[in-house]
């Protein structure tokens, strides 16, 4: 082959940019590693402990099941109630949070700003504060989950709204409809499938989240996990994990089925 064949345009190289980016990422990682006290030696030293715990984990205590039934039911009920109420609140809010459906710029900015703040706070922080406000139990958990759900659903649905086909809406506006009428009749049907799938997806998230928020006393499996872990009952903990696993997988199956039936 002659060298003259290579008439390929030279690729603009930005090697120094890659190097700088990698260096910055490396430095942040080292800083973070020092900050969290990363120490591989620790892991190696304590590996013996871990194998013991892992062996316990591999043997779930199935006899513990009857004591978990109430907590499982409570977790599921909390998740269902919170998803339903959260979704109901989110639907109109999503329309207020999208450029496409809300012509009122100041209102749009305010709604989006509030939603950004709502999402910035982790669900557990809501739960911890609400437990103090309304007392321990499922009510504080449900309230925390509702706030958390509204944050997620509004973000996902309003993003879907931003990319909706505007033709029908323009037609409705041109025919003299109000914005609300146009949004309701021309945009809402387009977005409904996305809304249903996002709500079902939040239901799954809620089951997982309620295992966490229970740690601060907001009811459900989390409260049980907290009890078990304080006494290092790993056999029982492993049964609870197994149960969460089964519930999440079952929900995933049911919700993908329901999504097909409702949306398809």
């Amino acid at each position, binding site marked *: 082959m002659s060298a003259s064949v290579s008439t390929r345009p030279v690729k603009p190289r930005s090697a120094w940019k890659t190097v700088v980016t990698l260096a910055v990422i490396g430095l942040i990682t080292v800083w*973070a590693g020092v900050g969290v006290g990363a120490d591989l030696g*620790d892991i190696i030293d304590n590996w013996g402990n871990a194998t013991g715990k892992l062996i316990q984990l591999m043997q779930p205590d199935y006899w513990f099941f009857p004591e978990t039934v109430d907590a499982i039911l409570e977790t*599921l*009920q909390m998740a269902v*109630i919170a998803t339903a109420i959260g979704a109901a609140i989110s639907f109109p809010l999503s329309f207020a949070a999208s450029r496409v459906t809300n012509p009122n710029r100041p209102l749009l900015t305010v709604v989006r700003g509030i939603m950004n703040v709502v999402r910035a*706070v982790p669900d557990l922080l809501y739960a911890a504060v609400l437990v103090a406000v309304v007392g321990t139990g499922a009510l504080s958990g*449900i309230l925390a989950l509702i706030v958390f759900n509204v944050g997620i659903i509004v973000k996902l649905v309003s993003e879907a709204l931003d990319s909706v086909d505007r033709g029908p809406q323009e037609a409705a506006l041109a025919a003299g409809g109000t914005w609300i009428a146009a949004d309701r009749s021309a945009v809402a049907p387009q977005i409904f499938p996305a809304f249903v799938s996002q709500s079902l997806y939040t239901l799954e998230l809620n089951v997982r989240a309620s295992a966490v928020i229970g740690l601060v006393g907001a009811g459900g499996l989390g409260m049980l996990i907290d009890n078990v872990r304080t006494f290092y009952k790993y056999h029982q903990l492993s049964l609870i994990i197994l149960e969460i696993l089964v519930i999440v997988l079952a929900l995933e199956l049911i919700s993908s089925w329901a999504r097909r039936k409702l949306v398809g």
Partner: protein
Amino acid sequence: MSVIDRTTRATPARPRKPRNPLRTAVWVGILAVFALSLYGIEIRWDRLLDLPQNLVRYAGLMFAPPDVSALGKAVSATIESVQMAWFGTVLGIVVSFPLSFLAAANIGPLWLRWPLRIVFAVIRAVPEVVIAILILSVTGLTAFTGALAIAIGSVGTLGKWGYEAIEGAEKGPIEAARAAGGSTAQIVRWGLWTDVAPEVFAFWLYRFEINVRASAILGLIGAGGIGSMLVDNVQYRQWGAVGMLLIVVVVITVLIDQVSGQVRRRIIDGSWGWQRKV
């Protein structure tokens, strides 16, 4: 009647909306589940009545004014949580990156693909806090435990998103690389990676945003950061400090989301967010 009546120009009746009994059944089912849940759960609904009043009272305790003397502690706790999230995310990326190639249908062999996918699914089902509780015995109660829990948790989602992106890659370049006689490594590097890289980078950033929130939660079991500070202050009812902490968390999280969102947009569209497309 099949004969068209030409004298009246009445508009034909609108066609009936097709009914879908199965869909109705699903809706009825959903409503029933909701009703059952409401009925079955033991909740003191009467507490809801006091909620607005209580919220105002606690908001007053927390924010009017927030305890400024707690600012330093709140900032350092938040930074510790962010460090936990960053370190955990990087570790998670390092582990999940090769695994997601092996779990993709167009690269990994079947016997390796399915076990990996099951591992990802199992990890996704377990909350980070539970993972942290499990690995406590190896690492002790430190921020490092939190970072490891986040790393393991991230492998579940990053692995899944990764193999889905890799499976969705365009076939053309891969075939071209193969036709040109490339080795598997070369096919992956030049036929596949170039196509999926932006999407994968975006996932990494998105997971980091999620992990910042997750790390706040991990402190709850004593892994340091925001969670630990929150629990301590709520326990001693130091609401001013809780208020300060919430403000710091919101500010830093919004900041991280903004920066990460800008970088993500840069990766995906090649333009910074403030360069509006016309």
